[in-house]
């Protein structure tokens, strides 16, 4: 399934990626999408991740052959770090601009 940026929006591509991630990663409790026109910027709140002073994403190239035609910036932080809203990478909008695109309803993944 080769896709181009004309085939899918950043948000929809992010939703597809996150749908798979939360299915197989039971530690994820919430996922934020930070707005950007040409990059998927995700912060996943994961009970199993390590403490971090700042949000430091890993950047993965676009993968059109796998249906993701945008570069992805993905960071995993703990719920405790989420509460103190750590500093974001340069150029990202602040936490208030982020959209929660997925979260557990009862703290578990059924």
């Amino acid at each position, binding site marked *: 399934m080769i896709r181009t940026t004309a085939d899918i929006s950043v948000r929809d591509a992010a939703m597809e990626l996150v749908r*798979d991630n939360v299915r197989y*990663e039971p530690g994820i409790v919430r996922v934020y999408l930070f707005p950007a026109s040409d990059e998927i910027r995700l912060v996943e709140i994961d009970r199993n991740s390590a403490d971090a002073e700042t949000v*430091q994403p890993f950047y*993965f190239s676009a*993968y059109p052959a796998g249906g993701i035609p945008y*570069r992805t910036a993905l960071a995993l932080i703990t719920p405790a770090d989420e509460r103190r809203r750590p500093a974001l990478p340069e150029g990202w909008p602040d936490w208030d601009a982020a959209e929660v695109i997925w979260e557990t309803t009862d703290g578990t993944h059924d």
Partner: protein
Amino acid sequence: MTKDWRSAFLAQAGSDYDVARALAERSDIPVSHALHYLQMTAEKVAKGFQTAPGAAPIARSHVAFVSFVRAAGNMPQIQHACKIGSRRQFSAYVQSLLPLASVLERLAPALAGDGRNAEYPWEHDGQVTAPVEEGFLDLNVRRDPRAIKLMQFISCCVDAAREEM
């Protein structure tokens, strides 16, 4: 000539990995040398992927590899590089790597403190040991199936990095 910090880190990681593999195949050379290069590969893979294209490098840190493995476990291009068809299998595969990834990460002298590492001698209970004398049974990339699996995963990440260069 590499273009930016990201590609430079990833290029160096690829070369470190090639040396690690060559050393792992030489049974006449202590396994610590292969692990030294594998630990450096892991560190540079993580730093490379943590650096946005065109951006300055992040602050120096030795503790990014385990976080990188967790993040990579969410990415279909890494799954593809590992040639694992099912997402469920890929997630289980990555989860199984995490304990040993942490052990490899802590082989960096800066994280090992005064303990076991792949580069400098250390003292434990009054006994001084050189890395070349240590068997590294849990990380023996020639014999231990879990260590071999971790090395294969790092190879997949190097392949994914080479794809983008």
